[in-house]
Structures are given as structure tokens and as C-alpha cells.
């Protein structure tokens, strides 16, 4: 096999795609795309305009975009330093911390919501203190939605940023250090610009995950139109009575997220 391929001119290798890879690849693509096609085929196109203008739809969409964006900002503020810590600082238990950070990835979001209630709820470990000392209760508030989304989405950001940091050349940082830069200056002036594409990619992934968040949100923040009812929750409740309107809501969410993701990708993330 190796001998043979060496004899074959280079460009012909591009032509021959192995069937054994092409078939499962095609099946994989169909598996991912067909359900989307199903939504488009079943969508009630004739009543679409009037459904789009229903007041509840725009409220839920606005809330979704706001909370996903704020959750992403929160993840950036906390997640980038954490990713830096994991990638650049040797400390005991680093592997454990790294494993703990990814727990929300595998935790069913509904369980995440319960866990958040047990800590930040009115009777929760920190929630009791927040309530008594400051009169702050987080469940059933928009802040609660942001927390639920950030909890589920932050691992995506951390993994992406840590990967970018580990892949980046540390010699620039070392050069900055030998020139007398402090660690903080090095971080802000050398490290951050160096891994900016990685941070942007992580933020986009994080935002997309936050936008689609359902389980933790409905469990921790409940469901109330205009305050905690984001698009995925609106879709779920529409599904209870009206499949068509659930499809319309899903299509809106899809269109908005795909448009924004595509726009960001072209602008900020330059693929190699």
C-alpha cells in the first residue's frame, strides 16, 4: 500500500476518496441535516408572518439574546483567567481542577438546575445568606437565567481557551518577561492578543450553548414570560399545545443563531 502510493503522482491521491469513509461521512451528514429539513418541510409557511408578530415571540427572543450575551460576558470574565491558570500555572491538583471544570458538560442540565437551586436557591447554601443579608433571591429572575446559562456554557469557553493557550508559543511570553514585563502586563499585552482567536471561538461556542440552554434554566429560573421564558422554554411549552407554533419558534431561534454565528465567524475567526 505504502509503496504503491509513493509511485502514484501526488494529485491523484486527492481524487480517490475511500468509499469506507465516504459512506459513513455521508450518513453522518444526513443524520445531522435531515431533522433540520424536517422542520423546514413541516413549517406552516402560510401562517408564518402572523405567527412571527405574536408579542410573546419577540419577548422570548429578546430575552434569549440578552441572557445568552450576558452569560457569555460572565463566562469570559471568569473563564479566561481560569483557563490561563490551568494552562500556565503548575499547582497541585491541577488535573482534578481540570476534570471538575468539565463536569457541567456531562451533567444533565436539569440536574445542574437542581444543583444551582441547592446552592443559590432561597433555601440554598449561599442563597439563604444572600436572601437574609441583601434581600437577593436568584431563582425565577432574569439573573437566574444568566447564571443557569453560564453554568452550562462556561466549560465550552474554558476548554477552547485552554486549548488555544497550550497551543500558543510561550517564547513570546518568556521574551516579554526577560524584557522586564510583569506577569499581568505579559498576560494583557502578549498572551491575550496571541490567543484572541481562540477566545473568540470559545465565546461563540459558549454563546451558542447558552442560547439553546433549556434544562438548567427551567429548573433553576422557572418559566415566566418576559422574565425567565427564553426561546427554548417557549418552544417546549408551545409543543404542549401547538406543534406548528413550536416549529416556528424553533426556526426563528435557528435563523437568528446561524446568522449571528456566520457573521461572527467571518469577522473574527479566521480559519486556518
Amino acid at each position, binding site marked *: 500500500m505504502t509503496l504503491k502510493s509513493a509511485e502514484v503522482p501526488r494529485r491523484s491521491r486527492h481524487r480517490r476518496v475511500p468509499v469506507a469513509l465516504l459512506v459513513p461521512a455521508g450518513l453522518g451528514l444526513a443524520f445531522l441535516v435531515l431533522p433540520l429539513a424536517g422542520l423546514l418541510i413541516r413549517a406552516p409557511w402560510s401562517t408564518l408572518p402572523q405567527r412571527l408578530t405574536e408579542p410573546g415571540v419577540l419577548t422570548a427572543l429578546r430575552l434569549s439574546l440578552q441572557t445568552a450575551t450576558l452569560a457569555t460576558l460572565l463566562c469570559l470574565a471568569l473563564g479566561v483567567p481560569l483557563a490561563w491558570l490551568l494552562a500556565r500555572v503548575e499547582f497541585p491538583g491541577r488535573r482534578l481542577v481540570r476534570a471538575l471544570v468539565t463536569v457541567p458538560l456531562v451533567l444533565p442540565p436539569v440536574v445542574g438546575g437542581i444543583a444551582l437551586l441547592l446552592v443559590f*436557591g*432561597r433555601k440554598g447554601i449561599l442563597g439563604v445568606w444572600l436572601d437574609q443579608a441583601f434581600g437577593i433571591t436568584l431563582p425565577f429572575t432574569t439573573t437566574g437565567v444568566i447564571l443557569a446559562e453560564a453554568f452550562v456554557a462556561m466549560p465550552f469557553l474554558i476548554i477552547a481557551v485552554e486549548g488555544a493557550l497550550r497551543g500558543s508559543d510561550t517564547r513570546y511570553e518568556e521574551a516579554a518577561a526577560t524584557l522586564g514585563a510583569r506577569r499581568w502586563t505579559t498576560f494583557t499585552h502578549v498572551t491575550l492578543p496571541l490567543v484572541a482567536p481562540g477566545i473568540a471561538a470559545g465565546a461563540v461556542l459558549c454563546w451558542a450553548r447558552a442560547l439553546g440552554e433549556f434544562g438548567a434554566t*427551567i429548573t433553576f429560573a422557572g418559566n*415566566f414570560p418576559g422574565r425567565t421564558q427564553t426561546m427554548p422554554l417557549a418552544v417546549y*411549552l408551545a409543543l404542549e399545545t401547538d406543534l406548528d407554533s413550536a416549529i416556528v419558534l424553533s426556526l426563528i431561534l435557528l435563523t437568528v443563531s446561524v446568522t449571528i454565528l456566520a457573521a461572527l465567524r467571518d469577522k473574527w475567526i479566521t480559519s486556518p
Partner: protein
Amino acid sequence: MKIRNALAALTVSGLLLLTGCGDSSDGGTASAPSGGSSTGAVTVFAAASLTESFTTIGKDFEAANPGAKVTFNFAGSSALATQINQGAPADVFASASPATMKTVTDAGNGDGTAATFVKNQLVIAVPKGNPKGVAGLADLTKPGVKVALCAEQVPCGAAATKALAAANVKLTPVTLEQDVKSALSKVKLGEVDAALAYRTDAQASAADVDGVEFPESAGAINDYPIIVLQNAPNKAGAQAFITYVQSDKGKAVLTAAGFQAP
């Protein structure tokens, strides 16, 4: 060359596995009703509020019919109706409201007409000991009292809206939950001070929750209809299960859970 062959073999065996799965599941359901006296596998889609009583009835039914195996899917009635209308393989549907049942029968997915087998009504579920001293619907509008209701799309929410209208009480809940169990869990966790839930659900959670009766709930009694489904893989088993639910033994379990006779 070897690698390519191996990959091709893998793909083929994968496909075989896939088709194999389809075959075995078809065979499983087809062979179930032909089991003579045994009633085989029965899949029951039932309203969330039936969780405890139907689980007990299911075990009794299996004990009374050796070879029978009852599998439940408990969820909000409307979600179940949607699943059934989208072709979920169920034998029996027990709904918490006639309106939800109607979406299934209107779609031609019911076999015959639905029979009402129990009634249920709402109570105000409060944390054990009733710390806020809730005595009626009007108390739920007091400042500092957080209330969870079911969303209006599910039967317990529709009943709550009806009862609140009958009492002329205007209430802003902190959340509209997707089914009665999640409304009740918010009471159990202490996140809300009260929820409108079915008497049966409050009774099932009697360890953590007290049920406060209120007169207006009489105006919002929910009938629970049950039906054999048109595309049931095991119609005989489905009918046997429904007969058992309506038998004296089934009724005893339901009454003990707080349901009323139809």
C-alpha cells in the same frame, strides 16, 4: 488494502447491526399479543399526576397477569399527546384532561371512545406546617408570598386559571411550570411558598407538603379519560390494563391516592 477491507467490513457490520436492531424490536412487539393468556408488554402513557397510583396498579397488574410487563411514560398530558400524535409506540393513554385527550382522538389515534376513570381537583400545596398561614386563594396575593402555577398549556394550569377566575383572584406567579410535579418540587425545595397542585400530588408528597383545600376548586374539577390507542402494538394487553384500572382493585388504589370516583 487490508485497512480498506477492514473498514468496509466494519461499515457493513454496522449496517447489519442497525437493521438487526429494527428486526428484533419488530419481533418483540409482534410476538407479545400472540402469547395467549399472557398479556405481554403494555406501554402506558400517563399524566404526571398518575405517577404513584399507576406505578402501584402496574405492579398489581403484573402480579395478577404472569407474563405481563407494564412500562410507563409519565409526563405532562399535552407532551404525551404530542408524542402519541407523532407516532410514539404506546398502547394506552391516560390523560389529566378531556381537552388533551381530544387532541389524540381528533387525530384519529384513539380506538373507540375514551372513558373517564377518575376525577381530581386542586389544592393549595404549601410547605409542611404552612409557614405563611395560607388559608385560601386570596392569601396567595399577599406581598411576599411566592406562588408557582402550572403553565396554562397543561391541564393543571388550565384548572388553576379556571379556579382563580371563579374566585376572582388576580395572581402573578413567579413561574409557570411545565407539569404539576415540577410545580410541587418548587414547594418542596422551599423556592416558592405555595403552588396550585392536584390533591393527589399534594397527598403523594405529604412528607414535605400540606394541601390546603379551597372551595373554588370545585369549579375546576379535572376528568381523567383513558383510551386504547389506534396504533397500539398490543391492543389486547391495553384493554386488559384499562379493565384492571377500572376494577375494584384499581379503584381502591386510585381512591387511596386522593382521586375521586367519576
